[in-house]
């Protein structure tokens, strides 16, 4: 294990270990886009009645991953932009008739064998979307062959749904899910990541999975962002050149179990609600599309909150048009927007400040959870080459160097400095004393480079095809 950088930010409002079920909603708002997916192919008509588990839409760019109806109800399209609204939610939960689609599964089984059929079933029942390709972060190809599978129970970003909470509630389902995962593979290893492999809990898990030869336990320190799949894959020596690495978290394994054991669609999610502006931080059991307002009305007390989809480091603030939880949401973090300006703030001893830099009195005491706001806490300045960004970088690249390249528009040099290895954890932006938005710059540069590459491939393909025609 070669781990670099990393840093834990302690923020008030860590979600507790309770999981509360939210009351049944009257209306669901299913966003058509989430972090990875854009469900652009709509399969239902306005006013149509759907059953639980029916396909509402699919994403043609991601192996037709489906957006499933989380409850039975009637569809409203075009009412809200970029959202499928599901009205008159039925009390009884009738499952959609999947017999018609099972024929397709049998067809797949004939072509790709039993494992292929299982994967098709996972896709249809909404469990496949819990898988990630570790290096690129995208959805893995369901018919591809991975070199290894990563299963992480960690969730280190403040704040996303904690793996340990979900695991403890349903340990049996989890180990059964691991068993199912193994049946999808031939001989590839499953790396099972735990914070402490000598703990009592780990030994219980070990007893459960004793029979599975290819499950390997890996211990990992609880430092953000070591649970990032790209960081994990790299530290385990799984290079992207040797094929894809599938990665999934606790909720993913539980979804696999639900889909393959019970054959039921996975539409329920456990999300966290935490952060400085929350009454009682904890976990919620909701269906995707659950109205955001019902959650915030109940849990947020802050008068001027910033409500973030995901954690404070990588999440995006919900826009004013966001009405429901998307299918990839792992947590909601609430921060108060900055209200007060401190008088002579930089001269204060700083006993109440939790900082990466030992420049405050608080560095003499143990690290503590701070009541953080969305304040920038300083002014934008040129880089002073303090090297803090490189110290915390888990990817082993030099953020300050790439920043200086990008500042001068030297995109090629930035690519040579491997900006593509950036895992977008946001730690460099967090520790920067000059308050440079390094993460945002790198995300932009990475997208630009990827776009350019795609265009180049396209022109190349076009040239080749014209050459063929000419020949």
């Amino acid at each position, binding site marked *: 294990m070669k781990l670099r950088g990393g840093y834990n930010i302690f*923020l008030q409002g860590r979600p507790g270990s309770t999981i509360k079920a939210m009351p049944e909603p009257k209306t669901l708002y299913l966003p058509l886009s989430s972090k990875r997916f854009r469900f652009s192919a709509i399969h239902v008509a306005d006013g149509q009645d759907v059953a639980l588990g029916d396909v509402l839409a699919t994403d043609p760019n991601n192996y037709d991953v489906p957006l499933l109806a989380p409850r039975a109800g009637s569809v409203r399209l075009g009412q809200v932009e970029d959202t499928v609204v599901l009205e008159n939610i039925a009390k009884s939960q009738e499952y959609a008739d999947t017999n018609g689609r099972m024929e397709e599964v049998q067809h797949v089984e004939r072509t790709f064998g039993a494992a292929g059929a299982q994967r098709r079933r996972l896709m249809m029942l909404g469990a496949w979307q819990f898988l990630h390709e570790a290096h690129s972060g995208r959805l893995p190809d369901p018919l591809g062959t991975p070199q290894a599978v990563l299963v992480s129970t960690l969730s280190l970003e403040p704040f996303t749904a904690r793996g340990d909470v979900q695991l403890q509630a349903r340990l049996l389902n989890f180990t059964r899910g691991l068993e199912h995962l193994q049946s999808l593979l031939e001989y590839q290893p499953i790396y099972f990541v735990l914070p402490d492999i000598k703990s009592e809990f780990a030994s219980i898990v070990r007893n459960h999975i004793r029979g599975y030869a290819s499950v390997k336990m890996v211990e990992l320190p609880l430092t953000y962002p070591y649970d990032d799949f*790209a960081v994990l894959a*790299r530290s385990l020596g799984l*290079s992207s050149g040797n094929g894809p690495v599938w990665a999934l978290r606790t909720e993913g394994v539980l979804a696999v179990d639900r889909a393959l054991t019970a054959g039921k669609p996975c539409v329920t999610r456990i999300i966290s609600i935490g952060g400085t502006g929350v009454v009682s931080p904890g976990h919620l059991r909701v269906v995707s599309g659950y109205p955001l307002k019902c959650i915030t009305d109940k849990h947020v007390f802050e008068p001027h909150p*910033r409500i973030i989809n995901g954690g*404070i*480091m*990588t*999440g*995006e603030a919900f826009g004013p048009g966001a009405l429901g939880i998307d299918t990839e949401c792992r947590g909601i*973090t609430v*921060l108060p*927007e*900055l209200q007060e*300006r*401190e*008088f*002579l*703030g*930089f*001269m204060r001893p*700083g006993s109440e400040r939790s*900082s*990466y*830099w*030992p*420049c*405050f009195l608080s560095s003499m005491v143990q690290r503590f959870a701070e009541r*953080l*706001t*969305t*304040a*920038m*806490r*300083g*002014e934008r*300045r*040129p*880089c*002073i*080459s*303090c*090297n803090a960004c*490189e110290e915390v970088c888990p990817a*082993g690249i*030099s953020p300050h*160097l790439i920043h200086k390249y990008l500042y001068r528009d030297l995109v090629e040099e930035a690519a040579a*400095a*491997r900006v593509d*290895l950036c895992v977008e954890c*946001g730690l460099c*932006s*967090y520790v*920067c*004393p*000059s*308050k440079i*938005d390094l*993460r*945002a710059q790198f995300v932009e540069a990475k997208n630009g480079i990827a776009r350019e590459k795609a265009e180049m491939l396209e022109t190349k393909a076009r040239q080749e095809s014209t050459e063929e025609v000419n020949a």
Partner: protein
Amino acid sequence: MKLLLRVVEKIRPHFEEGGKFHAFLPVYDAIEHFLFAPGTITTTAPHVRDPIDLKRFMSMVIVALLPCVATGIYFFGLRFIALIVVSYAAGLSVEALFSIVRKEPINEGFFVTGFLFPLIMPPAVPLWMVALGVAFGVVIGKELFGGTGRNLFNPALVGRCFLALAYPVQMSGSWLKPGAGVAGRLLQYVDGSNVDAVTSATPLALAKGGEYVSLSHMFVGSVSGSVGETSALAILAGGMFLLLTRVANWRTVASILISFTALAAMLHHAQPDRFGPALWHLCAGGLLFGAFFMATDPVTGPITSGGKWLYGALIGVVTVLIRNFTGYVEGVTFAILLGNIFAPILDEMVFALRLRRLKVEG
């Protein structure tokens, strides 16, 4: 404070786009943000930020310099306060002028330069020379390169180097004998007109003639020399603070001290009557001050850890060579400026190695 904040916010429109004093916005900004933390909020992830900012970062250096200021006033009198005031006034005017022309905010970096500069001046130097030196250092050493963060050379050292080369007589004739007695020169204001107090001999100059000042005097600081550099004790106290807050990097300091001591010890071992002992040289002149406060400037030094080791070694070795083999009695200024020249090259070397390793990753 609420009242003050209201006043500040009321005046602000006059300096903003379309206001009468829009040209002076950088000056106003600097004052406002000195008093009140800026009200900016994050717009992209990460949504929270570390409490560190450049103001805090630079104030750590000023706090670390306070022991040196205290011993400076104790040994060389109240005139040192005048030196600081002149240095700040002259440097800030230049800095503000450049900010207004360039329409960029005033950078906190100057507050350190303006504090460091008088500390490396001879105590009886004429005040106009302080003003001239700091203005030269800020303009040539920093602003021409684009301001703090983009400068190649340490501005304070550029200013000092300029004065040493342009006014060698005044510079070498402005040393003071340190105050004797319990009160030192705490209540005195001594300038160059006081003939009794002025001397031309610093410990390093005396050593050229074979006369070595006692080590204990040099450790406490009761010898002649630049205001801030004489007391090894005060420098170590402030330097340790700077290392603990991680504003200064320990690798640079360790590398300078180790390389310097090693080479000086070798020379002394080879020819004890020609070269002074290593420990004596370590405490003499500006070496400690330079190692802790000048070479550790993050902007003008290398970024990489490997670069820092090489940079420190270069400075340590060149200082010994200049002190012992040239006509100059002291070489720290030149050694660090030379190190500044090499810093980007050293970084390039380390980056080239690193990029080769990164090529195969992922």
